[in-house]
């Protein structure tokens, strides 16, 4: 069995078998393909990049070419068991609206975010006085696709202020799961949300 991306592994563990899953910004459909094979899920994706769509179709993933904001309007309430926003929230123009919409079309929502306040980012800012480049944030200021810069704490606060329930939170560090001081040592986190 091939090694799984750590975020994919955690997401796979959060999803019940035979679920109906929508992945917003599904890329080449790798995660959805895994969910189909290992969790027998019915998988649908939305993806903006044309080249990635070819890969999705190759993987047997049902996919719509388009942006996340307009893509969600096509679906009725509570249509999916899970809606996934992995590594895509920070690239969205209106994340608040998308999360609200995701919670409308999905019974549960899985959000994966890069942690902009990882210790290496903090150290780079402090000692180098430069915008940090880390494992979770591999871009320079001029080529980053990221529009939103948030930490694990920020996202917890965002959910709390809106009454969104965080059912589970798991964090990924260098090579292993992080259980302690996540906002400092995790470069990414996966949240399981519901209304």
């Amino acid at each position, binding site marked *: 069995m091939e090694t799984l991306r750590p975020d994919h592994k955690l997401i796979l563990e959060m999803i019940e078998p035979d679920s109906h899953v929508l992945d917003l910004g599904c890329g080449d459909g790798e995660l959805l393909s895994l969910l189909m094979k290992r969790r027998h899920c019915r998988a649908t994706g939305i993806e903006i990049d*044309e080249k990635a*769509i*070819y890969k*999705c*179709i*190759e993987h*047997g993933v*049902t*996919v*719509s*070419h*388009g942006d996340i904001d307009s893509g969600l*309007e*096509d*679906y*009725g309430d509570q*249509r999916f068991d899970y809606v996934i926003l992995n590594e895509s929230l920070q690239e969205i123009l209106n994340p608040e609206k998308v999360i609200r919409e995701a919670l409308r079309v999905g019974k549960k929502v899985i959000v994966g975010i890069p942690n902009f306040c990882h210790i290496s980012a903090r150290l780079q800012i402090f000692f180098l006085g430069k915008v940090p480049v880390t494992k979770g944030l591999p871009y320079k200021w001029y080529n980053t696709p990221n529009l939103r810069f948030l930490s694990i704490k920020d996202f917890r606060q965002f959910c709390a202020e809106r009454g969104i329930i965080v059912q589970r939170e798991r964090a990924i560090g260098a090579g292993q799961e992080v259980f302690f001081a996540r906002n400092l040592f995790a470069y990414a986190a996966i949240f399981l949300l519901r209304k």
Partner: protein
Amino acid sequence: MNDPFVEPQYFTFGHPPDELVLKSGLKLGPITLAYETYGQLNAAKSNAILVFHALTGDAHAAGVHQDVQNPGWWDPMIGPAKAFDTARYFVICANVIGGCKGSTGPASINPATNKPYGLSFPVVTIEDMVAAQKRLIDHLGIRQLLCVTGGSMGGLQALKWSLLYPDTVRSAILIATNYRHTAQQIALHEVARQAIMSDPDWQGGDYYGKSVPGRGLAVSRMIGHITYMSERSMDEKFGRKLKGKEKLGYDFSHDFEVESYLKYRSDNFVQRFDANSYLYISKALDYFDIAEDSDLQQAFKNAAAKFLIITFTSDWLYPSYQSKEMVKAMKANHLDVSFIEIDTNYGHDSFLVEIEGQSKLVKSFLGNLPL
């Protein structure tokens, strides 16, 4: 060893009193369909794909005939190791009724009068074209098609098939198409029809054996060609290049290459196509609206196929937003639908010429359907 040549075949049905009852309520029969097949039907009869042609297409979708060496209209997509891999699939393409390439149409002899039908040929619809081809598929003993597919008018037929006979089709690939003809699409066709009907040689459609309304039909084809290309692809192909002269002529002979191109293509077209067929088929397209009896969402309530919908960024004749509306209605019905808009300059003609992307998609999509 496979025969290197393909041959048209013919199937005749609907002899009186068992004529095909058309959507208009009128009857048509007997009906002959010209069709071609590529590849072999497997023992389980589970590998058949029905390809539908566009307005001026025909049953000759792939390969070459022994006498004329021009390959079929979708030859880059159909054949061994191609998108519709004939080593794996059995591909069928039939000429539509109302056409002029071997299937019964206005130029055919009406057995009741022993004269060409002309305008006494009943107006046919996309539904009728599809119903006739259903008879062919039944005749071939195929209960379920692996896929129905086509671009433009071919896509309309594939869509209609998936709605009329949901149990007989596992998947549908709809390319550069729409769920209804819009005002602009109708308007463009009306200009084409008026061009034909205002040609003095048209004679109310009764011109067979006499001189054909070639000028009118040529103008129709010119309009068609313009709508099939994008503004950019035309400019890239022709620009302001002059044809056969060094400088502008200051008269009304052709100056520009694009003018000669339209003339050349339309003259060719007049040689191979019947003006009345153009009237009938364009009318069938304009009558098409799957939501005529309900709303669009309702129209899909019985559909069951797995759909792949392909559009092209530069197609202004069948723009992507129309397919997106269809995708939305399909999703509301919990249908399994994938959608992609391919970035290309070729306009509506992309479904014939953008081979690389379409081939990848079709191959993967079909490959994921177990035979």
